[in-house]
């Protein structure tokens, strides 16, 4: 990494970090000046202490949630990409399923959580399904858009080479849909964590969502905050991993971006 790109990265990360730090300091001062009780609003220093002292229970719960999120994402990716390809390839599916996929966006999937509980019990399954349901939509929509965005002239060029429909899909449409797919996946990662937590809220015996419910009931507000911090770190890390995979999967995009700048 050259000095300039290092500076560019620092320049991008530094301002939000400073803002975050400033907010934490203001919060700390506010709590100390007003002397708010811990159950009402614990100071950031208290939250940090809890993060450290309860690290093993936090880690145990985080691991459960992470499993749900990753499993749910995996299901959503497979189902979403399959659905997108189906909608793209088949007129009938496009006419029948695509409007439903769009309309399903209006359903508050979260409201289905209690039903999932009835059908699938308290185990991993209902949370994975909840996560997958929430992550499915952004992946499907983005991938369909990506597949449709293929350049007409390029597809015609392939036809003049005698390429079959399948070859055109493999050579032009599928790789061309990758950027859109990754955009959808980035949205999916963020909402997937929400899906898992809601699944745990409704009925669970472990996971960070479950831990939040318990801590809230016993007025361990500091523990609630600690859970939120861990969830945020989890979401940001997953997002970062997707960014990394995206860069590795599409090395050519770096040059394109530079060209645009």
């Amino acid at each position, binding site marked *: 990494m050259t000095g300039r790109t290092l500076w560019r990265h620092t320049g991008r990360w530094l301002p939000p970090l400073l803002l975050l730090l400033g907010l934490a300091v203001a919060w700390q001062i506010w709590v100390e000046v007003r002397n708010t009780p811990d159950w009402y609003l614990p100071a950031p220093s208290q939250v940090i202490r809890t993060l450290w002292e309860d690290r093993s229970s936090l880690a145990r719960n985080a691991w459960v949630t992470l499993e749900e999120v990753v499993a749910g994402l995996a299901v959503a990716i497979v189902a979403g990409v399959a659905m997108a390809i189906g909608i793209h390839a088949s007129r009938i599916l496009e006419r029948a399923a695509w409007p439903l996929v769009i309309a399903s966006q209006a359903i508050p999937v979260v409201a289905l959580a209690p039903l999932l509980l009835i059908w699938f019990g308290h185990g991993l399954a209902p949370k994975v399904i909840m996560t997958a349901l929430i992550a499915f939509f952004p992946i499907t929509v983005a991938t369909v858009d990506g597949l449709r965005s293929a350049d007409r002239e390029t597809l015609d060029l392939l036809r003049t080479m*005698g390429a079959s429909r399948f070859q055109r899909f493999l050579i032009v449409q599928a*790789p*061309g849909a990758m950027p859109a797919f990754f955009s959808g996946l980035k949205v999916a990662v963020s909402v997937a964590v929400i899906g898992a937590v809601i699944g745990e809220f409704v009925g669970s015996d472990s996971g960070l969502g479950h831990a939040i419910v318990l801590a809230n009931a016993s007025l361990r507000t500091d523990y609630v905050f600690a859970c939120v911090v861990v969830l945020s770190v989890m979401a940001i890390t997953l997002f970062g991993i997707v960014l990394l995979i995206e860069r590795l999967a599409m090395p050519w995009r770096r040059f394109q971006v530079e060209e645009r700048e």
Partner: protein
Amino acid sequence: MVASGWIPTAYNRGGHQRAERERSLASAPGQPKPILSIRDLSATYAEQGAILPVLDRVDLDVGEGEFVALIGPSGSGKSTLLDIVAGLIEPDRGEIRLFGEIHAAERRLGRSAYMQQRDLLLPWRTAVANAALALEVKGVDRRTARDQATQRFIDLGLQGFETVYPAQLSGGMRQRVAFVRTMLGGQRLILLDEPFGSLDALTRASAQDWLLDVLSRDQRSALLVTHDVDEAILLADRVVVLSGRPGRVIHQEPVVLPRPRTRDMIASAAFVAARIRLLEQLGLVHAGAGS
């Protein structure tokens, strides 16, 4: 530069090509055996309910090993004509005989190689992978295809740029990669639709030079659409002029310049005379201006 065969073995007509051309020249003076023969071709587009005629009863031949340039005002249906020959669209009437056979559009696909003004390189493929595309589509295995493309890179001064992405190449180099892709398909007829239209004047001149160079060693037939009269004369054996929309053939100009062609021929009397006649046909100079 190495005089290597551009055409994969199945198509490599090599040395006997010239002999064959001379033979057909003997049988029909000035008219080599047509590889593409278009008769009475008319095409229309339907646009917002109205019918837009774009080509009107066009007759056009391209001989074996012949280079034909097609010029005409913009909108005269030149691209449409190439689309029809390539098999992308079906005309309203008329017949297209390719390599002696008449086929519906669907079955014309893959029989000629088509290069357009936009290079249409796939951004996620390296230069050499882009160049190998036509071979890969034909089922040639990836490594063999890329090896062949790599060899062609040398002829066009692209060596060292094999594993670079299109976004890292200049417009002129991208066009060369697209040209290698076009040539590697192995078809005996190449269709070129203003391939250098987006290049600046200097890059364009060098592009014309490598096109001349490669085609002089290769002897494929070519149908080139261009709006540049000088380019048409410099490259072609014959220049066909289309009228404004709907396009009709209004003039055919045989180019009597010897081969190999060089850029300094632009100053020759034959070149200047051809140029004036073509500009007259295009309505850009008035009759008699040159003589």
